[in-house]
C-alpha cells in the first residue's frame, strides 16, 4: 500500500514541477539555515570532556572586601583564586584530584642556529592536571607532585609544537628554551583541545579553538619570573607582578575531580568551613563559596557567544516561515486535486487512506528538502569556516547532525502536510463527481 502511495505522490509531484521545486527549495533553505546554525550552537555549547564532566567541579571563594565587591551587583563570586587560597585547597587534598592553573604567553626559542623566537600559549599548572582532564600522551608522561614542590624545570608540550620543533619525533629528554630558561621535555601530548576551552575561560585564554602549546609546573615558572595573563587585584595596592604569591590578587583557577557528583555537598561544606576559617583569621570578610560542575559553570558564564544564539533563533524563525510557506503550497496542490480525491473516495478509498497518501507526498517533499538542505548546510558551514571567529575551524557537520537534518526535514514537512492532508480527506466525494 505504501508503495502505491509513493507512486501516486511522485506522479502528483511530477505533474506540477514548478510548484514542487518551489516547495522543496523553500524548505531546503530553511533547513539549511537551521542546521548550519544549530551545528555551530551544538559545537559551542558541547561537553568538553563527556566522560569526565560530571565529576569535575570549579570551586569559588570571595576574598573581596564587603564594600568593594568583585562584581558591581555584588552577586557574582570572583572568577579566580589567590595563590594562598588555591594552594591551601590544593594541599588539603579533599578531592580525588585537584590542580590549579593559569595561562601565560611565553616566548619559545628553538634550539640551534638561527631559530627565530616566537610566542605561544602556555599553561602553568600542577601535576594532577593531566590525569584529571584525561590529557592523552603520545610520548612520556606528566610530572609528579614532587616535581611541583622541587620546582623542576620540566615541560609537557602539545603534539603540534612537537611537530613544529622536532618533526613529530619522540622529543622526551630534549630541551627547549622558554622565556630564556631551559626546560626538559618529559611528555608530548596527542592532539588534545577540549571544546569549549573550559579551563581557559577566565584565565585570559580563548574560549574555543586550538589548545595551548606548553604545560609547565606553576611553581617552577613562577620562580623563573613568568607572569599569568590575567591578574585582578582586590586590595588597595597596585599588584606587584613579581610577588603575586603574597599579593592581594586573584589569578588562579582551581579544578577538582570528585569521585562522583554525590560528593559535591561534602566538598562544598569543606569549602564553606575553609572560608569561615579565613573570616576568623581576618583574611576574608565574606564566607560565601561556590561550587559548579563543569557544564553548569560553562552555562553560567555564558561561554556561547550571543551572536551564535541570535543566529540560531533567526534560522528557526526562518524555518517557521518556510514551513508556513510549504503548508500554503501543499494546500494549493491538494485543493486542485479535489476531483481526483472525489473519484478515489467514490471508488472505496477510506479517509485514512487519502490522509496517508497526502502525508506520504509531504514526506517526499521533506526528504527532498532535507537532501538539498544538507547541501545548503554544508555551504553555510563552509562560509562559517571562513569567518574570523575563534571557533571557525571547528564548524563541521557530524553524523548526529547529518541524521538530525533528515529528522528536521521530515518533521517540518509532515507538520506542514497535516492541514492539507486533513482538508483532502474531508472532501465530500459527491459534489466533486457531479461537477465533472
Amino acid at each position, binding site marked *: 500500500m505504501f508503495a502505491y502511495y509513493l507512486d501516486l505522490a511522485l506522479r502528483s509531484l511530477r505533474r506540477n514541477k*514548478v*510548484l514542487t521545486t*518551489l*516547495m522543496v*527549495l*523553500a524548505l531546503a*533553505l*530553511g533547513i539549511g*539555515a537551521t542546521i548550519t546554525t544549530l551545528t555551530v550552537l551544538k559545537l559551542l555549547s558541547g561537553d568538553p570532556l563527556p566522560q569526565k564532566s560530571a565529576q569535575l567541579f570549579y570551586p569559588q571563594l570571595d576574598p573581596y572586601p564587603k564594600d568593594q565587591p568583585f562584581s558591581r551587583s555584588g552577586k557574582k563570586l570572583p572568577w579566580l583564586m589567590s595563590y594562598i587560597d588555591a594552594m591551601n585547597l590544593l594541599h588539603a587534598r579533599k578531592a580525588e584530584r585537584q590542580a590549579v592553573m593559569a595561562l601565560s*604567553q611565553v*616566548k619559545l626559542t628553538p634550539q640551534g642556529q638561527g631559530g627565530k*623566537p*616566537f*610566542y605561544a600559549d602556555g599553561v602553568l599548572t600542577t601535576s594532577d592536571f593531566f590525569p584529571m582532564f584525561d590529557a592523552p600522551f603520545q610520548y612520556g608522561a606528566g610530572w609528579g607532585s614532587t616535581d611541583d614542590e622541587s620546582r623542576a624545570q620540566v615541560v609537557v608540550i602539545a603534539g603540534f609544537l612537537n611537530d613544529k620543533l622536532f618533526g613529530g619525533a619522540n622529543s622526551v629528554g630534549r630541551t627547549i628554551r622558554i622565556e630564556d630558561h631551559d626546560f626538559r621535555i618529559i611528555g608530548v601530548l596527542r592532539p588534545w583541545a577540549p571544546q569549549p576551552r573550559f579551563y581557559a575561560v577566565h584565565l585570559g585564554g580563548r574560549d574555543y579553538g586550538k589548545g595551548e602549546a606548553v604545560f609547565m609546573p606553576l611553581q617552577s615558572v613562577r620562580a623563573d619570573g613568568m607572569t599569568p595573563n590575567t591578574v585582578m587585584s582586590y586590595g*588597595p595596592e*597596585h599588584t606587584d607582578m613579581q610577588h603575586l604569591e603574597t599579593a592581594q590578587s586573584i589569578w588562579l583557577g582551581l579544578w577538582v575531580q570528585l569521585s562522583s557528583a554525590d560528593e559535591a555537598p561534602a566538598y562544598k561544606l569543606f569549602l564553606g568551613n575553609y572560608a569561615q576559617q579565613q573570616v576568623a583569621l581576618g583574611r576574608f570578610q565574606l564566607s560565601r563559596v561556590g561550587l559548579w560542575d563543569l557544564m553548569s559553570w560553562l552555562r553560567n558564564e555564558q561561554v556561547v557567544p*550571543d*551572536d551564535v*544564539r*541570535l*543566529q540560531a533563533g*533567526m*534560522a528557526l*524563525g*526562518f524555518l*517557521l*516561515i*518556510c514551513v*508556513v*510557506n510549504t*503548508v*500554503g*503550497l501543499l*494546500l*494549493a*496542490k491538494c*485543493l*486542485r486535486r479535489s476531483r481526483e480525491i472525489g473519484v478515489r473516495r467514490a471508488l472505496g478509498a477510506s479517509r485514512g487512506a487519502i490522509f496517508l497518501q497526502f502525508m506520504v507526498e509531504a514526506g517526499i517533499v521533506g526528504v527532498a528538502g532535507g537532501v538539498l538542505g544538507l547541501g545548503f548546510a554544508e555551504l553555510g558551514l563552509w562560509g562559517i569556516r571562513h*569567518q*574570523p*571567529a575563534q571557533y571557525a575551524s571547528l564548524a563541521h557537520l557530524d553524523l548526529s547532525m547529518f541524521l538530525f537534518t533528515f529528522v528536521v526535514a521530515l518533521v517540518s514537512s509532515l507538520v506542514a502536510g497535516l*492541514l492539507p492532508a486533513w*482538508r483532502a480527506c474531508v472532501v465530500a466525494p459527491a459534489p466533486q463527481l457531479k461537477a*465533472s
Partner: protein
Amino acid sequence: MQIQPILAALRRHRLASILIALEIALACAVLCNACFLIVSRVQQTHVISGVDENALAAMKLTGYDPTKGVDLNARVLDGLAKLPGVQSVSVINQVPFGDHAGTAGITTDADGKHFGGVVDLYVGGPGSFKALGVQMVAGSVPQAADYQPIHQFVPDDSAVWVTRALAEHLWPGADPLGKEFWSDKLHFRVVGVLAHLARPYGGEGGPNTIEWSVFVPAQPGAQLAGMYLLRADPAQLPRVLRDARAAMATIAPDTVIDSKASQTIGSLRANYFRQDRVMAGILVGVIAALLLVTALGIVGLASFWVQQRRRQIGIRRALGASRGDILSYFQTENFLIVTFGIGLGMLLAFALNLLLMTHYELPRLPLYYLPVGALILWGLGQLAVLGPALRAAAVPPVVATRSV
C-alpha cells in the same frame, strides 16, 4: 475597483489567505528586527577614532628584557626614523582599535569618593600627540616640559588632554580646563580638550563610553616602551610598515614583533569590526532568503488561484471586463491579504523585539521601522503576484463558452 467582491471571494479561500497573511506577518516581524539589528551593527562600525587613521601604523615589540626599555626605545626611534617615507615615529602605550594598555578607574576628588568611571589613558612620548593628528577644541598642544618621567604606569602629576565627551560626563556644563581628577594616588590636571579620541576597544561600558579617553604626555622609559606609532604618507604607509617590520631584525633582533598588533590603524579598525560586518552580512542573507521564500509562496498560491478561476475570469472578460480589470483584481486581492498580514506582523515585530531585549543588550525597535517594513512587503507582494496576475489577464473570454 470594488473591494466587496474580492472580500467575498477571499472568504471562500479563507485557509489559504490566512496562511499567506501569516507568512507575511512572520516575515514582517523578522524583517523589521533583522533590519534594526543590521543598522545598529553598522552604526557601531562608524566610530570616529579622532586620529589620522590613514597615515598611522602601530609597531608592537615583545620579548625584550623589561629593564632595557630605554635602550630599546632609543634604538627603535633612531632606526625607524631613518627609513625612507617615515614622517615621524614616537612611543605610545596604545592606539585606537589595538590592545588595551592604559585602562584606569578615576575619581574626581583626591579621597577617591566620587567615582568618575573607567577611562583609557593614552600615554604618549614626544611627537605622539602631533602624529595622532587629534583635533583640539580648547587649550594648546603639549610643550616639552609636559612630558614627565614615569615611576608607575603614568607620571605622578600630569597635565592631560581629555575628550569633549569625557569632559561633559565628568563636569557637565562646566569649563573642563583646570579641572582635576585622580586614579588612586596619581593626579591629573586638564589643560586641553580634544574633539574626538576613541578608546582602543570601542566602549565596553556601553556605546556612550567609546570616547572616554585621556591623553597623558610622558617621557618614554622602562614603563613606556615597546609600542611605537609610525606616521607616513597614506599612499606609502603599507610599504613603510613592511620596511619597518623588516628593519626590526637588525634594529632590535632581541625582540619578537607582535604581528597582530603591528598594523596600520586602518587594518586594526577593519579587523576590530570584522565580526560585526560578518554578522550584518549574515543578517542581510537571512532577509534576502526570507523575502525570496515569501515571494515564492505568494507566486505559488496566486498561480494556483489563477488556474482554479480560469472559467470565472473568462466569464468576467466575456461580460466586458478589460485585462486591466483582471490584473487589478489580483493586485488588489494581494494587497488586502498583505495588509492583513502586516497588521498582525507589526504586533509580532514588537513581541520579537521585546524578546530580543530581554536576552541581548538591544534598544527598543524605533517605530519608523514598521512603515518601512510594510512598504517593502507591499512591494514584494505586488511584484510576486504580477506574474500570475498577468497570466490571469491573458485568459481569453472564449474560455467562458467551453465547458471545462
